[in-house]
């Protein structure tokens, strides 16, 4: 044609195409089937992604290969994330893959089993790495979708059971491109935030594809690295995710995770009131026991011995008094009786009585004369009668 046309070199054109493509498609997610898969001795992976209508060259650099959850092979359906780059020496464009995951159910299952095996071999699921879930958390971290039903379920259980807890929500995408990275990042952030006692990581139920983020290695490693105990709550009760295996505790559903995370306030209040009554009863029993003990002591034989002794003594004193009284009386009566008889005797002996009966006593020189021989004629004597005496002169005759 003509030379006045604006001619550029291949290199220049390619440079422009490169710039245009690379700025136009900095990050894309594509789904396709792997073909012409080659693992180069350098470690880089080269293959083609295709569907019914088109095909795309793809490369995955060695540095990213370790993060693959599965071994790629021809015919496998995958979802890949990367950027479009142009390789000028060959004049072609390709997808520079950063991350790739299986797309079909069969592939997902395969990838799941493979990752599970790998992480299990590394010890990520080992029981000795499981951190205990605190019984009384004051602050709970939640990693889930801000708009999902799972969050509402968790919050409603928390506010019903234990509204005194604080909740720190780290909102994330829970499915689709980039969700695994967000989840892993949120787990790290909650760890940095500090003061969180336990975290719930999860989402509601869905298909295996929907739940896939929780089967990604990056999430598993973030959970494993978390210093905060993690309760995983992914999807349905029956399905286990890699997150479930890695977490410190697996809850069947988000609601169940919330139930596990906090103790029920009503139960706790009841427990406290039971403890309160236990203490009260214990004290009451103790005091009434002591009371009984004291009254028992007061009633005991030993304690009452002194009183008994006093009573016995006073009884004895009474008895003695009585018996002393009896014998004194007796003595007095005996004495009285003797006195009376003596008095009678004396009375009988009283000479005056005899004199009254007509007898008289003869005295001479102050002596009682009891014989006629003591009297001589001319003696002066005295005759005593009961009512007086007369002087007489003795005349012995006859």
């Amino acid at each position: 044609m003509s030379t006045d046309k604006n001619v550029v070199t291949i290199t220049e054109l390619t440079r422009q195409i490169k710039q245009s493509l690379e700025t136009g498609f900095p990050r894309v997610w594509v789904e396709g089937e792997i073909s012409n898969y080659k693992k180069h001795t350098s470690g880089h992976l080269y293959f083609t992604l295709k569907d019914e209508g088109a095909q795309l060259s793809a490369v995955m650099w060695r540095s990213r290969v370790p993060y693959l959850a599965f071994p790629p092979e021809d015919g496998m359906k995958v979802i890949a994330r990367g950027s479009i780059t142009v390789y000028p020496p060959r004049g072609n464009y390709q997808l520079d893959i950063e991350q790739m995951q299986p797309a079909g159910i069969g592939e997902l299952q395969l990838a799941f089993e493979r990752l599970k095996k790998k992480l299990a071999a590394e010890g990520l699921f080992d029981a000795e790495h499981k951190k205990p879930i605190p019984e009384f958390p004051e602050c709970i971290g939640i990693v889930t979708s801000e708009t999902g039903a799972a969050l509402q379920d968790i919050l409603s259980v928390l506010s019903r059971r234990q509204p005194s807890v604080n909740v720190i929500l780290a909102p994330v995408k829970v499915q689709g491109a980039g969700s695994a990275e967000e989840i892993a990042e949120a787990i790290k952030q909650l760890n940095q935030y500090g003061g969180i006692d336990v975290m719930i990581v999860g989402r509601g139920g869905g298909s295996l594809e929907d739940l896939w983020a929780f089967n990604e290695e990056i999430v598993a490693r973030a959970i494993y690295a978390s210093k905060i105990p993690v309760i995983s709550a992914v999807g349905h009760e029956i399905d286990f995710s890699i997150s479930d295996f890695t977490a410190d505790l697996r809850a069947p559903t988000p609601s169940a995770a919330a139930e596990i995370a906090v103790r029920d306030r009503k139960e706790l209040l009841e427990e406290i009131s039971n403890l309160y009554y236990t203490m009260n009863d214990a004290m009451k029993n103790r005091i009434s026991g002591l009371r009984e003990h004291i009254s028992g002591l007061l009633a005991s034989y030993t304690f009452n011995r002194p009183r008994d002794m006093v009573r016995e003594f006073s009884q004895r004193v009474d008895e003695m008094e009585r018996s002393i009284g009896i014998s004194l009386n007796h003595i007095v009566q005996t004495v009285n009786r003797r006195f009376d008889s003596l008095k009678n005797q004396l009375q009988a002996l009283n000479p005056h009585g005899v004199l009254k009966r007509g007898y008289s006593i003869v005295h001479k020189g102050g002596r009682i004369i009891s014989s006629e021989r003591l009297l001589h004629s001319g003696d002066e004597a005295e005759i005593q009668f009961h009512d007086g005496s007369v002087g007489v002169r003795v005349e012995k005759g006859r």
Partner: protein
Amino acid sequence: MVAKKSEKNSLEHYLQRLQEIAESLEQGEVPLDEAVNLYEEGIKLSKECTEKLKTAELKIKKLSKGIEDQLALNETEEE
């Protein structure tokens, strides 16, 4: 007092202490004056625990990434 298992988690700490007190009072082996002290402590603890449980409504904070990739907190009211 018992060993501090978790200093900040006072509810757990209180409850544990309360249980200990109730048990030792139930066993009735402590001397009476000590038992009276324990009882007083227990009554106080049970009141404090109850208060602690009864106060506060669910507080929710949202962690979000700022432009500088720094942690920012948005308070949101719930319920």
